[in-house]
């Protein structure tokens, strides 16, 4: 993207808050991602790691590192005292939380502030608001975004649920208020299923998010999952960086993403983008964020939720807009003005990302182990975000994502050919990975035609002889 960078040396004189050192409160590929940009900006980095992550790549390439606990996340990557203690010992200026872990913990953001450490992200109150999915729906609706018909608050009884569902009309979906990442969700197609769905969703939510509150929304059939990347500074300026198409999901977990979407016209992009930006401005949003929408077959869009952090799939936006989202997060946290207007946005070509997991490509069973053979694709228009290497031991303690392969090309057709080529020469031996799954998707006629929706994986798995349902 041709971002006209106004933030040159002029602004440096007005910027008293340039970071000298950032602690990355995360692991894996996103920790490496933040380190790469910090190196480019001349900012020193501090890595934190659990004892089993001692040989992880982010530890290797940070300037300083500290072991903060044993493998379980609660005692390490979610261990706020350990992370803050490390930040104080190393005298860091700011903490980048990555995604997952503490990235959307308003409590953590507040503690950072109390300890005079800049949390790289939006203000704590905005994180808190968007973290409550029911409140987020209400707030964004008030801020002008269309929402899917649904319950105005948590559903407290089966009777209430039945009544609401009758008003909205089946099919409906039960969702966790404190949820995200596709967990704590149940699609309900008839009255008889509702009671059990409410119960199981609530139990799952309580276990995963320590809050069993659930709400109900109308379930939109075969929607597309379209999300808008926004970027705002701390002075009220906000722009969007276009959309990402994330409809290819299994059990509400994204498998691959692309930008731009095959169905968004420039007009719809403008409408959705402006709506997202206006809402963020009203919220007092700052830093990077993503507004997730559902797009139905008629081209109506509905606000789903907002992620107040950098997302896994941010690279596809970076490829087509030439932006560095991490760099912008850091600059904004340093107190720099955004420096771009919406007119500066250019979307060039097409990008696709495949999330490579350490899983059996057919059963999706986790496949930890030591990586023996290893080769990463390179060449024109290929980017790989990863933290693994030959000899690395993939542990079972964390997320199974081990690499993201992103390609960029002039057209979607060329991007698909490029992804095929990249996946073909990508070698990860010693463990099972989902590379073969992605290769098959690249060959799928519906995918190639751009005919994708959130029902895609169900169709694809059935077509490839798998009885496992894609959702639920």
């Amino acid at each position, binding site marked *: 993207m041709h971002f006209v960078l106004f933030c040159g040396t002029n602004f440096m004189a007005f910027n008293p808050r340039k970071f000298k050192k950032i602690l990355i409160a995360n692991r894996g590929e996103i920790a490496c991602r933040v380190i790469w940009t910090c190196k480019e900006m001349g900012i020193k980095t501090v890595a934190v790691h659990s004892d089993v992550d*001692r040989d992880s790549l982010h530890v290797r390439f*940070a300037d300083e*590192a*500290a*072991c903060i*606990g*044993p493998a379980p996340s609660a005692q390490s990557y979610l261990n706020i*005292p350990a992370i803050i203690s*490390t930040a*104080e010992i190393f005298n860091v200026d700011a903490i980048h939380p990555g995604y997952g872990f503490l990235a959307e913990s308003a409590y953590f953001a507040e503690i950072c502030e109390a300890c005079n450490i800049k949390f790289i992200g939006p203000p704590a109150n905005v994180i808190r608001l968007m973290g409550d999915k029911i409140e987020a729906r209400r707030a964004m609706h008030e801020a002008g975004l269309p929402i899917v018909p649904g319950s105005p608050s948590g559903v407290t009884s089966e009777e209430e649920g039945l009544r609401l569902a009758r008003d909205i009309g089946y099919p409906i979906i039960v969702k966790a208020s404190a949820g995200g990442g596709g967990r704590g969700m149940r699609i309900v197609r008839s009255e008889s299923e509702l009671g059990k769905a409410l119960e199981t969703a609530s139990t799952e939510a309580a276990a995963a998010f320590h809050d069993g509150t659930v709400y109900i929304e109308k379930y939109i059939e075969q929607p597309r999952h379209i999300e808008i990347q926004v970027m705002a500074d701390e002075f009220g300026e906000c722009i969007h960086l276009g959309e990402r198409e994330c409809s290819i999901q299994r059990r509400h977990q994204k498998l691959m993403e692309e930008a731009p979407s095959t169905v968004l016209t420039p007009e719809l992009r403008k409408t959705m983008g402006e709506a997202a930006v206006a809402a963020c401005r009203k919220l007092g949003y700052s830093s990077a964020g993503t507004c997730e929408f559902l797009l139905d077959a008629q081209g109506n869009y509905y606000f789903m939720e907002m992620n107040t952090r950098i997302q896994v799939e941010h690279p596809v936006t970076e490829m087509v807009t030439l932006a560095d989202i991490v760099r912008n997060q850091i600059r904004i946290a340093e107190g720099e003005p955004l420096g771009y207007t919406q007119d500066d946005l250019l979307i060039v070509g097409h990008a696709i990302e495949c999330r490579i997991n350490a899983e059996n490509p057919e059963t999706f069973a986790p496949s930890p182990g030591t990586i023996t053979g290893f080769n990463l694709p390179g060449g024109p228009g290929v980017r790989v975000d990863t933290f693994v290497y030959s000899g690395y031991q993939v542990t079972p303690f964390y997320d199974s994502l081990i690499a993201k392969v992103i390609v960029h090309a002039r057209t979607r057709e060329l991007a698909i050919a490029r992804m095929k080529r990249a996946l073909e020469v990508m070698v990860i031996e010693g463990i099972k990975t989902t590379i073969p799954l992605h290769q098959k998707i690249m060959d799928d006629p519906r995918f190639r035609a751009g005919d994708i929706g959130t029902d895609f994986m169900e169709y694809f798995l059935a077509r490839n002889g798998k009885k496992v349902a894609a959702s639920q």
Partner: protein
Amino acid sequence: MSAPKEESEAPNKRNRSRREQQPGAAERPSASVNLDELRELITLLRDNGLAELELENEGFRVRLRRESEVAESSHAPVSPSAPAPEKPAAPAPAASGPAHPGTQATTAAAQDQDLHIIPSPIVGTFYRSASPTAEPFVKIGSNVEDDSVVCIIEAMKLMNEIQAETSGEVVKIYVENGQPVEYGQPLFGIQR
């Protein structure tokens, strides 16, 4: 190997002089490799627990780097709060890894196979006593029980009393007063 006719990057003094050194030993006898000297350098590296050593002398440069067998010894033994007495490693993390609070102590503890090691349960700053003027909780030779407080580790302004959780005699203390410590870092060696 001949020097390229034109530099692909901007002229760089260091690169140029390195290329000028390329010609083999026979052409510059004064800079030939002395095996005895090399052995001495290797001993120096090992005995002082260095990760990397670089020596330049009359147009001849040697860089020795120790590969890590276990995580501990690969990192430069630089305390994050105080400058190290010598500066053994190049700043580039690719060569020596990041500065870990735990390195020297971990290496030392690794040699004390027969002792029970008390590790740090948290990240923080290690203190030998309850206050700057107080006596240390334990000294070399002190006897401890399960609930004996051996040190304080300060984290986020909270003083955490660390208990021995074993009984025996303190024979090794791996860290210094005021030193930052990480999770799992060896603090004391106890003879049970």
